[in-house]
Each structure stands twice: as structure tokens, then as C-alpha cells.
């Protein structure tokens, strides 16, 4: 049992780290903000952590905190810019941010060592600590989602006009979501650096964007559990079925398309909706169940 666990430990670490990234992505998507920036924030977090520990000998935990703070600051600056934009343009602006970060990582060689990346990062993010961090992050999102902020997010995503007519400031909530997404993204990146010994700029590009989005879409972005499930499925499936290993990205691409087309709410949200529907049916007097609006939202 122990040897079985330890052989899959790196897989578990990966799932935990990516689920923080997926949470960062889910949070913005829940607020109806179409941001691809979690990858950029992860890059900032990872590089801050790596540079501080390897070049300046800073305590790794302090370095992780610094990485998270810097990512949050950049997210705050981004939030001011993107909250004025609509839908697809938020995607373009944040994609530009990701590209700027990759370019900085490749070009600022005196600090980031260019395409070679940074080696020898102390491995402090062990499975136990990762579990703790993920539990904290889940609790944070769960709490936020239960109160008015979560409801405002849901309303903005479903219908912006209704949200505005109810006096909800879309810009303010979008800024908040972006900043929180920066915090989680930076955390995911810093943990990634603290878990993998070496990082390169190219890791924080297109492939990570697609991975984060696939996890968020696969699990579903309304519920907290979607990010965890999405990360778990996407990371573990290719490992469990070795056949997929060679065609890993074909598999990932097909999965993304299938989920978007056939299960647009993601696994967890669809299941929750189904459960809610059944509960409503049962509560109603028999024979009348077909007439009500069963599409009423879960949670």
C-alpha cells in the first residue's frame, strides 16, 4: 500500500497544484469574466519564487509568499484594464499578458536565464503541504461562493443587464474576481516551482492555458469541486491509460471539444443540477412534476 502510494505521489502532487490553477480559472469564469491570465499569474508566481530562492537565498516559504503577492499586484493592475472590456476582448487582452510574460521570461536573461530556465529550486512543496493549501483554497472559494459575492458572480455571468438593473456593479465584481484569480494563479505557480526543481518560460504558455481551461470546463465552474475533479481527471487519465500517453494532446483537445459541445456545464455542475431537479420533483405533489421550471438553478 505504501509503495503504491509513493509511486503515485508525484501524480498526486501534480493534481493538487493544477487544481489550484483550475480554481483560479474557475473563479473568473464563474464571474463571467473571460480571462486566460491564470497562466500569466502562475508564471509570475513561479519565477518570483525561483529567482528569490536560487539567486538571493531567500527562505522558500517567504519566496512563495512574495510570488503570490507580486502576482496579485499584477492582477490588480490587469483588473483595472480588463473590467472595462467585454467578453472576447478580455480574452485577447489577457492572452497578450501571457505572451508578454513568456517574452520577458525568454528575454530578460540576466534574471530569468532565458530559455534555459532556472534549475535547483528547493523542493519544499511536499504532498502534505499541498493538501493543506488546496484545502484552504477550497474553503476560501466555498465561503466566497456561499454569500452575496457568489450570487452576484452567478447573476453577472447569466445576465449582465439584469445584474446592472439590480444595482450590482459588474466592474467592481470583475475586478475582485480578477485579483483573487491572480492570488490563486500566483499560488499555483509558486507551488509548481517549489515542487519541480526546474522551470522554463515555455511551460507558462499556450499548453498551460489550454490545460487550465480544460480542467475548468470539464469539472464545471460554478461549484468549487469542479476544479478539483477537472484537474484530477485531466492529469490522471493519460497516466492510467498508457495508450494515451503518446497522443496526450490529441486526447486533451478532443476532450475539450466534446465537453464544450455535449456537457457545457461540466461534470460537477451537471450532476448538481440533476440532483436539484430530482429534489424539486420529489417535493412536489405527484403528477404535477412535469410543469415546473426544472431548470431552476442548483445551490
Amino acid at each position: 500500500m505504501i509503495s503504491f502510494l509513493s509511486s503515485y505521489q508525484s501524480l498526486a502532487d501534480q493534481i493538487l497544484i493544477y487544481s489550484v490553477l483550475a480554481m483560479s480559472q474557475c473563479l473568473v469564469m464563474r464571474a463571467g469574466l473571460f480571462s486566460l491570465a491564470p497562466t500569466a499569474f502562475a508564471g509570475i508566481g513561479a519565477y518570483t519564487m525561483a529567482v528569490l530562492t536560487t539567486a538571493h537565498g531567500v527562505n522558500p516559504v517567504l519566496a512563495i509568499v512574495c510570488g503570490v503577492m507580486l502576482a496579485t499586484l499584477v492582477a490588480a493592475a490587469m483588473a483595472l484594464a480588463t473590467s472595462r472590456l467585454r467578453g472576447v476582448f478580455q480574452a485577447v487582452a489577457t492572452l497578450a499578458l501571457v505572451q508578454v510574460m513568456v517574452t520577458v521570461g525568454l528575454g530578460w536573461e540576466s534574471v530569468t536565464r532565458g530559455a534555459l530556465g532556472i534549475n535547483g529550486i528547493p523542493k519544499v512543496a511536499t504532498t502534505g503541504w499541498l493538501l493543506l493549501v488546496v484545502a484552504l483554497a477550497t474553503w476560501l472559494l466555498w465561503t466566497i461562493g456561499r454569500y452575496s459575492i457568489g450570487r452576484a458572480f452567478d447573476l453577472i455571468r447569466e445576465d449582465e443587464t439584469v445584474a446592472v438593473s439590480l444595482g450590482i456593479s459588474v466592474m467592481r465584481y470583475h475586478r475582485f474576481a480578477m485579483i483573487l484569480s491572480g492570488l490563486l494563479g500566483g499560488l499555483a505557480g509558486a507551488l509548481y516551482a517549489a515542487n519541480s526543481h526546474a522551470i522554463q518560460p515555455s511551460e507558462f504558455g499556450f499548453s498551460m492555458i489550454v490545460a487550465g481551461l480544460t480542467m475548468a470546463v470539464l469539472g464545471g465552474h460554478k461549484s468549487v469541486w469542479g476544479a478539483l475533479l477537472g484537474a484530477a481527471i485531466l492529469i490522471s487519465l493519460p497516466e492510467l491509460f498508457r495508450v494515451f500517453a503518446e497522443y496526450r494532446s490529441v486526447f486533451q483537445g478532443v476532450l475539450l471539444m466534446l465537453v464544450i459541445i455535449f456537457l457545457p456545464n461540466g461534470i460537477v455542475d451537471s450532476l448538481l443540477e440533476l440532483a436539484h431537479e430530482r429534489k424539486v420533483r420529489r417535493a412536489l405533489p405527484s403528477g404535477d412534476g412535469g410543469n415546473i421550471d426544472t431548470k431552476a438553478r442548483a445551490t
Partner: protein
Amino acid sequence: MLLQQLLNGVVVGSVYAIFALGFTLLFGVNNILNMAHGSVFMWGAFAGLAAVTYFGPSFPLAVVVGMLAGGLLSVLLDIVAFRPLRRRKGADMSALLSSLGANLVLLSLAQNLSNTKVMRYPFGIFPIVNFQVFGLRIQLLQLVIPLICIVMVAALVFLLYRTGLGRRIRSVAFSESTSRLLGINSEWVNAQVFFMSGALAGLAGVLIGIAFNSVHYHMGEPFLLKAFVVIILGGLGSIPGALVAGVVIGTIETLTISYVSSAAADGITFAVLFLIILIRPTGLFGKASTVMRVQRQ
């Protein structure tokens, strides 16, 4: 030296413009940011190369096969990845996500097919003729590429504003449901738009493959990212905007690469994108109607 670099910039910029034309056409009509456009471009170059390898080096053959392959692939994308999502709430987001998935599939299939190798068009596919004008060395290809670009822009503008198909396309772009009420087969119009967009991408792929003498599975991504900058700078959905912005970006980039460094060129390009989005999100040629689609008041 400066003039020579300017010429190179215009040539590269023309290809950016051809690539971005298809991209901006899709956005203008269907409100779709097609992230798989770069892969269509790459598959166009692959198809042109395959045709040339089987039937012998011929420039027109490569161009025609590349355009056909790009167009057909793009229609296939429409059927598989975009059509099921149309008329759904928040369709632009899910279309973007689904095209990201399609892009990944096309990219890794190409990687497996080419074994991650860099391939080349056969030597002599395009006659090498050099001109000397005022001390400038101009190759025939460097004249042909901007010419093709201008012809394509003219043809597209003519098609959109002077033909029946163009009228149908513009009406679908304005409102798909209204045009269906008027008896326009909107799915067929969309398929035609996707074919044109893909054919332009395939053309750009063949031209780049010949001009830079290299075809590989990863060639699409930098062009896709440049196309974002081009269409934002030019104004979304604007065809003259794509032409002007393509040439401007190509020139700026070539000059920066030759006088500063290639890393700086990328940095400057994306900084331009950033500033445009912050200061004037509608771009150079954006109309008042685009403002509503871009910004909150």
C-alpha cells in the same frame, strides 16, 4: 540597408495581412475568434508541400492546393467545432474554447505526421530573379507576395460589397436570425465564409513556407499571435484595417529585429497590442458600432 529592411518588412507584413484577413472575416461575420486559424495555415503549407512533392515543383499548384486544403479544413472545423455551439448563450466563449481544443488536435496530428522535423519546399519552386534598383536587391518573390496581398484584399472587398454573396454575408453578420427570416440559408453562408477564411490562411501558409524555406508543425502559433495584434490594431472585422495594420506590424517587427533584437521585437509587438486595447480598443479603423461590442460604458 534601411530601405532593404523596410522592403522585407512590407513583404512579411503582407503575409501577416493575408493571414489576418481570414481571421478578421470570421470575427466580423460570426463573432468567433478562431484559435485554430494558425493550424489551418500550417496544414495549408503541409498540403502545398505534399502536392509539390508528388507532382513536381510548381508554384501555382502549391498555391491552389494549399488554398483548397485550408478552405476545406476550415469548413470541417465549422461543422465539427462551431456549428453545434451557434445560437447558444455565451456562444463566443464556448466557440473560443472549442477552437482551442481543435487547434490542439490539429497541431499534434501534424507533429506526429512530420515527426517534429522541419521540411522544405523543393529548390527552384519559384524562379529566383534578382533586380537591382537604387542599390536595393529585390527578389521576384518579394514583389509577388505584396501583389498577391493587394489582389486578395481587392477581391475580398469586391466580393463583400459588390456581389449577392457579399450582401448575404453582410446580412448574416448583422443578424443571423433576421437573415434566416429573409430566406437566407445562413449555415451555407457561414460555410462559405469559413472556406474563404481557411483558403486565405492556406495561401499565407504556402507563401510563408516558400519565402522562409521552412515548413514545420509549430509555424502557426507565432502567426496566430501576430494576427491578434494585427486585427486589434486595424479594428476588428475591418478589411482595410487588417491590410494597413499587417504592413505596419511587419515593418516595425523587421526593423526591431535588425536594429535591436528578436526578443525585443516580440515584446514591442505585444506592448502595442496592450496599449491599443487600453487606449483605443476599437483600433485604427473601428466604427462606432464596434465600440459597443468592445467596451462597457
